[in-house]
């Protein structure tokens, strides 16, 4: 199958300030279709702010972001599957009710895939979300997000709250459940865990993009892993 390499995300002069503090500083960035891209940077570098603007949860101070050529809105929300860094599920609902909720609102939601992943992770569909541990809630969220056939998956710290034993399965789940024409933008600071699945990395610091390169290109040119290279670039 031929992979579409047109940009799914375009940021043009994207700037966000909170009061007097600049969170994003004139970012220009293109992300192509069909790639797994790591958005990497230390805490407070602007990763989550950038992701929230892409999802329409924050408005930029200047510049714009386009998703498939359109500004964030109802149309782009059909195309993006977003996993935030916090738990956004309704605590009073059961897991199966949350699955129905996603199926009701997202036409691209695959219920069979969701139930299959729940079974593999041994999560009971009848369980109420408020009774689940934080890590299990994060797994449920990831299952919901990855059960959609989206064009763009934006995953903000998808494995941060998950035990190491489950991380491999989750990464496997991410890789297995997206179409080759789709893009995954994955923000994390656990680079060593995700490095094996990344096609491309974007380094961000103080709200500016400092590097955008292929993961293999970094390993070849720098002679070290992306994780090691990241530690050197962002050494305190």
């Amino acid at each position, binding site marked *: 199958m031929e992979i579409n390499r047109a940009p799914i995300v375009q940021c043009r002069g994207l700037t966000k300030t*909170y*009061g007097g503090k600049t969170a994003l500083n004139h970012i220009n960035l293109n992300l192509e279709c069909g790639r797994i891209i790591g958005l990497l940077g230390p805490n407070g570098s602007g990763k989550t702010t950038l992701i*929230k603007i892409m*999802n*329409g*949860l*924050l*408005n930029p101070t200047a510049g714009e972001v386009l998703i498939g050529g359109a500004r964030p809105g*109802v*149309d782009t*929300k*059909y195309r*993006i599957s*977003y996993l*935030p860094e*916090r*738990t*956004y*599920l*309704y605590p*009073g*609902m059961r897991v199966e009710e949350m699955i129905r*909720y996603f199926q*009701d*609102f*997202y036409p691209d939601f695959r219920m069979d895939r969701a139930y299959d992943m729940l079974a593999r992770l041994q999560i009971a569909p009848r369980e109420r979300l408020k009774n689940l541990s934080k890590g299990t809630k994060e797994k449920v969220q990831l299952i919901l997000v990855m059960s959609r056939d989206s064009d763009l998956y934006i995953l903000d710290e998808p494995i941060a709250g998950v035990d190491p034993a489950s991380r491999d399965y989750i990464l496997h789940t991410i890789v297995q459940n997206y179409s080759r024409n789709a893009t995954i933008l994955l923000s994390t600071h656990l680079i060593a865990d995700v490095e094996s699945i990344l096609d491309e990395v974007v380094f961000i610091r103080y709200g500016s993009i400092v590097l955008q390169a292929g993961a293999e290109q970094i390993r070849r040119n720098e002679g070290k892993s992306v994780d090691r290279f990241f530690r050197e670039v962002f050494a305190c």
Partner: protein
Amino acid sequence: MLGKLMKYEWQSTWKLLLPANLLIVVMTFFACIAIRLNFDDIRNEGILFSAAMILVTYVGSMFVVMIGTAVYLIYRFYTSTFGDQGYLLHTLPVDKHNIIIAKAVVSTAWVLFSSFLIYLSVLFIFASEEGVIPELMDSMEVFVVRAGGPSTLFAGVMTLIAFVVSILARVLKVAACLSLGQLSANHKLLMSFAFYFGIYLLQQIISSFYYAFLGLVNRRLDGFYYGETWEVTLIAGLVYTVLFYAVTWYTMEKKLNLE
């Protein structure tokens, strides 16, 4: 999508609000028995004390349900729109009009339901031996006459519509204040309260000016149509509904700030 939003809004509110409102029905039943006891003939202090406690609990439960319903609806609006669950709500492929309408309609329906139950409850408590229906008719007549219009069905219906619109305006006022409050970087709830009291003060000033103006006109024109009518309530309600809706929509659409 509006229907789906309303379905989930209803599902997430009824589990708490329906039992709370059923408490009114239960307390009314016991209070009706307690208030109809012939206290002069009862010598048993235990029964007297129990009857008094039932009546006190009845009055207390009315306040708790009324205030609790309002507080819960405000809390739910805030957490589901600007709290953690806002991340889910605002990434659904639905426009902001649908979100606001779904929340406003369901909240208004709950406030109306609670108000209606409390109204009926009070009628039952004070109903004469002839039953509750004559009391209901009497109170409706007083309601319409007090509304300033003629005692007609039209005036009664319009008064009820004005009441519903004024509740909707109040619900949207809270939504607008929470939407404005979330613009603040650090003190979102505090700013929401500040906006609420600021707007409340402004509304009182506008109302005072309106009645002062009518007072002046009435002094000059004998028999001028006075303002305490359903028309004023309806017009003010509609104006505030449109205004607060517009503020809520604008801040959600253009200034959403889920930091």
